[in-house]
């Protein structure tokens, strides 16, 4: 082992060197980097759209536009691109591709060509989404695409919306099949199911959810375009169709999509918390079962998105119960995260700052979610800023911060270099403070009755709470914007001029991507197939046996 580790003093032998090797790659790590680049590009676009909206909302009356269509375009681009172009590809693209195969000791994904196709489908989807900024008749029907509006000319190019969802959905489904086979069949010798890192479990489970629910979303938007362009009538009541059918089909996927994002980003937290606290994951097996429990429980919560759509009382009551039920596995995961830190020897590294900040945002979002589940409460706050703030805390902001934590955590393995520690921590603090100023006051505005998606609030001009909340929220945006910009600068600086990593395992992890590979893992990840010896566990920081390697043909091998 020691003869192999750290033998990369010059350059980055673990990375492709030619354009052909980058563009036509079949390697899961390079594909993972392509996912990351696409995700970050999407984050920038969606972030700019959010910034434009927030500046517009900074004061009563028009600030930078009085055109409602333009505002709707920003709103649409922000939601659709942030979820479909940034968070899901970053978690189920980058983390699933770059990290998971190495973490399970595999040489690649099960189907490398399908994997490469998946990433180019994702890029196709991103390019389609970006086209919405420049085409005539652009789509402005939000990321939800509800009919009957989406079937009208006023909604713009409904086909574009359908294709974005279908193409990204195809990318997700092929990726999910690939990842499930990789985890099921390509684990190295000696690694049982209950020896997999929690990141792997979380990504695997999220992909199972994708496999079950994405096709329904794809079907729902295909029917939308069939109705609008080819004269079908699935959502047209005039010929016997039903508009509410779309709402149900859409949320049948799109609520579980929350867990598709939530699970992998909590997986990243587990990894960083355990490594930073030098502690075994608290109650590992119960945590795994909690993760798995998300599959059945998430399948029966979508109806709470239709509380105000005319449901019978008995169904609202039932859905209140099933929605609250999801708190059980989620609560266990939170308990496990907390327990992992308990009495740990915590090192507050840069990635840990980001992970801790994400964890605190998650706590706020989770606690404010419980009342929303109660249909009686939801009746009063549906479609208000309360809901918007809740899902930004619980999914959007905590998820994004956890993704950034993951990028910082695996950065040395990606680039062979370290990011500036001060900048890493400063950006984490800035993002955390900024986003709390953005979203915290908006809870109060929502309680006062401020509805979401409005481009102005002239009708609340006399309500000091709402006006002040909007004002402070915009100030928070500037802090967040600078922090996000600095985060990207920190990565670029790290990749180009960062201090060279001197160890393949700078954080002291026990997971295989750190303990069994070079500083930058090369093609095939491991020089020869890796073996987990008896008693090995990714969270045993006390007496974990070292991973071993099968002998290379013609040599004595490395042990």
């Amino acid at each position, binding site marked *: 082992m020691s003869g*192999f580790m750290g*033998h990369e003093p010059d350059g980055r032998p*673990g990375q492709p060197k030619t354009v052909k090797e980058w*563009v*036509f*790659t*079949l390697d899961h790590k390079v594909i993972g980097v392509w996912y990351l680049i696409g995700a970050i590009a999407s984050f920038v676009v969606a972030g700019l759209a959010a910034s434009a909206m927030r500046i517009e909302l900074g004061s009563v009356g028009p600030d930078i536009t009085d055109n409602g269509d333009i505002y709707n375009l920003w709103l649409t681009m922000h939601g659709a691109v942030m979820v479909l172009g940034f968070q899901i590809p970053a978690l189920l693209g980058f983390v699933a591709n770059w990290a998971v195969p190495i973490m399970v000791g595999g040489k690649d994904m*099960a*189907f490398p*060509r399908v*994997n*490469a196709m998946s*990433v*180019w*489908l994702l*890029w*196709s*989807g991103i390019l*389609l989404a970006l086209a919405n900024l420049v085409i005539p*008749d652009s789509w402005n029907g939000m990321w939800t695409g509800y009919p009957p509006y989406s079937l009208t000319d006023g909604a713009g190019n409904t*086909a*574009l919306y359908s*294709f974005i969802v279908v*193409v990204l959905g*195809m*990318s997700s*489904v092929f990726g*999910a*099949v690939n990842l*499930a*086979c990789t985890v099921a*069949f390509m684990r190295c010798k000696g690694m049982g199911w209950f020896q997999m890192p929690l990141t792997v479990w979380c990504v695997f489970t999220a992909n199972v959810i994708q*496999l*079950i629910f*994405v*096709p*329904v979303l*794809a*079907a729902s938007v*295909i*029917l939308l375009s069939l109705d609008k*362009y*080819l004269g*079908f009538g*699935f959502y047209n009541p005039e*010929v*016997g*169709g*039903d508009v509410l*059918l779309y709402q*149900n*089909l859409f949320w*049948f996927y799109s609520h579980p999509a929350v867990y598709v994002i939530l699970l992998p980003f909590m997986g990243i937290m587990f990894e960083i918390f355990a490594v930073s606290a030098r502690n075994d994951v608290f109650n590992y097996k119960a945590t795994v079962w909690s993760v798995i429990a998300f599959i059945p429980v998430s399948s029966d919560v979508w109806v709470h998105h239709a509380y105000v759509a005319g449901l019978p009382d008995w169904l609202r009551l039932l859905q209140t119960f099933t929605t609250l039920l999801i708190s059980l596995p989620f609560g266990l995961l939170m308990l496990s995260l907390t327990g992992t830190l308990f009495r740990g020897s915590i090192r507050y590294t840069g990635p840990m700052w980001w992970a801790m900040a994400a964890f605190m945002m998650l706590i706020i979002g989770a606690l404010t979610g419980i009342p929303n589940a109660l249909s009686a409460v939801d009746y009063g706050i549906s479609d208000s800023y309360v809901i918007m703030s809740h899902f930004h805390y619980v999914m959007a902001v905590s998820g994004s911060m956890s993704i950034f934590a993951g990028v910082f955590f695996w950065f040395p393995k990606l680039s062979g270099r370290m990011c500036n520690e001060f900048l890493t921590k400063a950006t984490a603090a800035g993002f955390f403070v900024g986003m709390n100023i953005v979203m915290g006051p908006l809870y109060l505005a929502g309680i006062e009755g401020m509805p979401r998606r409005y481009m102005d609030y002239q009708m609340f001009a006399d309500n000091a709470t709402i006006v002040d909340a909007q004002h402070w929220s915009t100030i928070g945006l500037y802090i967040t914007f600078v922090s996000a910009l600095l985060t990207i600068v920190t990565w670029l600086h790290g990749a180009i001029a960062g201090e060279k990593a001197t160890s393949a395992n700078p954080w002291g992890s026990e997971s295989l991507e750190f303990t069994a590979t*070079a500083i930058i893992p*090369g*093609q*095939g990840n491991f*020089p020869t197939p890796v073996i987990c010896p008896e008693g090995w566990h990714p969270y045993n920081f006390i007496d974990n046996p070292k991973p071993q390697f099968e002998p290379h043909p013609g*040599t004595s091998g*490395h042990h």
Partner: protein
Amino acid sequence: MSEEIKHYTAHWHTSPNPLLVGFGAGLFLPWAFMLQFVYDMQTAALVTLAIGAGMTIMGGLGWAAETIGVIDDENWSPSAMFMFIGTEIMTIGGVLAGYWVARLGAASWPPEGTPADVGANGALIATLILIVSSFTIGVARKKELNGDAAGFATFTLISVAIWAVFMYLTIAGWSELAAQGFTIGVNAYATALYGFTGIHFAHLVMGILVMLTCVPSAFKGRLSYSYTRAMTMYVHFVNVLGCWVLLQIYYW
């Protein structure tokens, strides 16, 4: 540098074909549809369609040339196909939910404007013919397991021919209904009929491509058991889907 590291970093596996398929099918084909149906730019649509289809076909053929007939002992394709079929079932289930909502919520069924004869008998005969392909593809698989590559190719091509007959009968049925004025937007039943038979038709096109990719390598005597097993699973699934469509649309 030790031998292990040389081996480890020697070269990176590459192929242009996934990129061609990804951008061809994911970017150019959607634009062809939008140029035609949203922007009414027929020439541009045609050019974009040619580029997209060309990239997809070139990439697909290149992909097939690289992988078909590569005999491996890693038998993962059937598992992947099993999962893929699961996603197909969910997709169709989503559409089916729409049909059930319309069907069970209707005051009377079939709705006004539906012809007395929608071609149920013709659909039954066509489906019976379709089912025969499950037997012929089963024989093909048996030939493969016995190492008879030519026999495998022959029975695979017979299965393709059976599907082609079914597709011809489907198109004939559509034409007959359209001639009576029963087009897709007439009522909810027309939407369901054309929608479901159309979905099934698309699967047949895909299935024929999947079957045909097995044939060249079979004639060369190189068969990937994993791939052909996955292929036969898909054929059976599409046949079951055909039966389901028949029962839901024509005999319910």
